[in-house]
């Protein structure tokens, strides 16, 4: 990457079940906190990147914030949108199209009771999925992830207990995070005995449904000098996507991370072995397993054995989901922004009880859609 860029401010919105707020007020408050960390003012924001903030989301958010961006992006890459938007922000800032990029998101999906497993009827677009998949009662999105998990188990001998280890590791981290939604003890046995939803995925293989969101400021080295907190350098970023319909995914055991990972690591000039902390998108336990393999932390098919070693847990060789992740901390419909926030806090050394000692290099890896999209961002403390 030619000129270094930095994340200079991050903030979560209110989390859990958020009363007395709407999504825009949540974004506005998080933005003010992130700007304070960055030492910047609201009117300094000239690039705006949002997802799932309604029709023409960036237009709505800009009006609410009272800003007029000269670069605007409401790309919908599902939960990976925010890592992809770091990638987009790099392109926009390097091209001179903006200088201070705000990436923001909030959802009250829990309070609104907005989640449904049915997949529903599409409001717009071509209804191929509605005619070819919805009538079979394949739960959305869980059923698609279940088909992927079943294939991985068949092909590589991955076990339910190995998937459960991912949920247990997330819970052990959540117990160190006072903001985490689920902090009760959780064992592998608990996971194995949990209610089946779409086999082989059971209740504890599936992320939370909570309210939440956040804000993140990306800017140049020059503007980073104003920051009140330690700026975190962006070493690399990349994105990709493989399919929309699960029938069109070429290989159920290989995600888009197999493209975004190597590209981000090449840009960063480092290897997976250099990474101190990983924030993988844990929408489902299988999502993490594929990310570990496709990003190159272990070989294809060896994800089960890798997690079984306790690598992801506190004290493990690859501390992962250190906030408690989407499985135990918070999952506001799209977790990608929270992964960036947690990575930045770990690299600044301000993660409290869950701080990974001397974390210098971190990866936030977003995954979205029906295991369709991937965005990989590599960050470093200088």
């Amino acid at each position: 990457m030619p000129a270094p860029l930095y994340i200079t401010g991050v903030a979560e919105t209110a989390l859990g079940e958020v009363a007395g707020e709407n999504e825009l007020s949540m974004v506005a408050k998080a933005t003010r906190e992130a700007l304070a960390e960055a030492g910047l003012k609201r009117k300094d924001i000239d690039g705006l990147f949002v997802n799932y903030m309604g029709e023409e989301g960036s237009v709505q958010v800009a009006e609410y914030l009272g800003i007029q961006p000269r670069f605007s992006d409401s790309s919908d890459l599902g939960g990976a949108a925010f890592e992809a938007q770091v990638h987009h922000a790099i392109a926009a800032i390097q091209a001179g199209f903006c200088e201070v990029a705000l990436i923001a998101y909030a959802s009250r999906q829990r309070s609104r009771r907005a989640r449904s497993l049915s997949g529903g009827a599409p409001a717009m677009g071509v209804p191929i999925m509605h005619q070819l998949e919805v009538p079979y009662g394949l739960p959305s999105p869980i059923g698609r992830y279940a088909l992927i998990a079943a294939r991985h188990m068949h092909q590589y001998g991955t076990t339910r207990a190995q998937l459960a280890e991912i949920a247990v590791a997330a819970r052990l981290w959540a117990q160190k995070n006072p903001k985490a939604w689920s902090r009760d003890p959780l064992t592998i046995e608990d996971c194995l005995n949990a209610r089946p939803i779409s086999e082989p995925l059971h209740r504890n293989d599936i992320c939370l449904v909570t309210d939440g969101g956040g804000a993140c400021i990306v800017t140049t080295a020059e503007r980073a000098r104003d920051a009140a907190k330690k700026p975190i350098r962006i070493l690399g970023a990349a994105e990709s996507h493989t399919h929309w319909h699960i029938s069109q995914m070429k290989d159920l055991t290989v995600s888009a991370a197999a493209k975004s990972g190597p590209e981000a690591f090449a840009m960063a000039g480092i290897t997976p072995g250099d990474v101190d902390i990983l924030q993988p998108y844990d929408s489902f336990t299988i999502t993490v397993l594929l990310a570990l393999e496709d990003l190159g932390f272990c070989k294809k098919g060896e994800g089960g054995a890798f997690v079984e070693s306790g690598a992801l847990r506190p004290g493990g060789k690859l501390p992962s989901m250190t906030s408690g992740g989407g499985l135990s901390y918070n999952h506001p419909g799209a977790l990608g922004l929270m992964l960036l926030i947690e990575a930045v806090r770990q690299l600044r050394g301000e993660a409290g009880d869950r701080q990974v000692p001397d974390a210098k290099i971190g990866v936030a890896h977003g995954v979205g859609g029906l295991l369709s999209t991937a965005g990989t961002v590599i960050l470093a403390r200088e």
Partner: protein
Amino acid sequence: MSDRMQIDDPVLWPYWEAAQRRSLIVQRCQACGHHQHYPRPFCLECDADTLEWVETKGQGTVHSVTTVHVQLLPELKPPYQVALIDLDEGPRLVTGIDGTPCTIGDRVTVTWREREGLPPLPNFTKAAP
């Protein structure tokens, strides 16, 4: 309701017209012989635009399968199975499993699930050994 399906997706409609005759069809490229599903105006393999609809043998192999334990549709009482099937002609499709539960690698044959006011829905059932 069938009219609605045709209006919503005229490109896919021949598939449902064939379903009304209990025929499972997919696109075949006249240039390179590649079969594909769902339909597109070009061949994903060779880019030719000379595609025809051809009848499949209605046979395939289970590539992956999930057993669903939640009720999403009034007509589907859990537990039931949804699978990805690799047709012998090549294309992979999402389908429902009727009858005996299947596992990955099982050979399956098409059956038809009747629907009120809609074309029958292709499902698959474990093939006789």
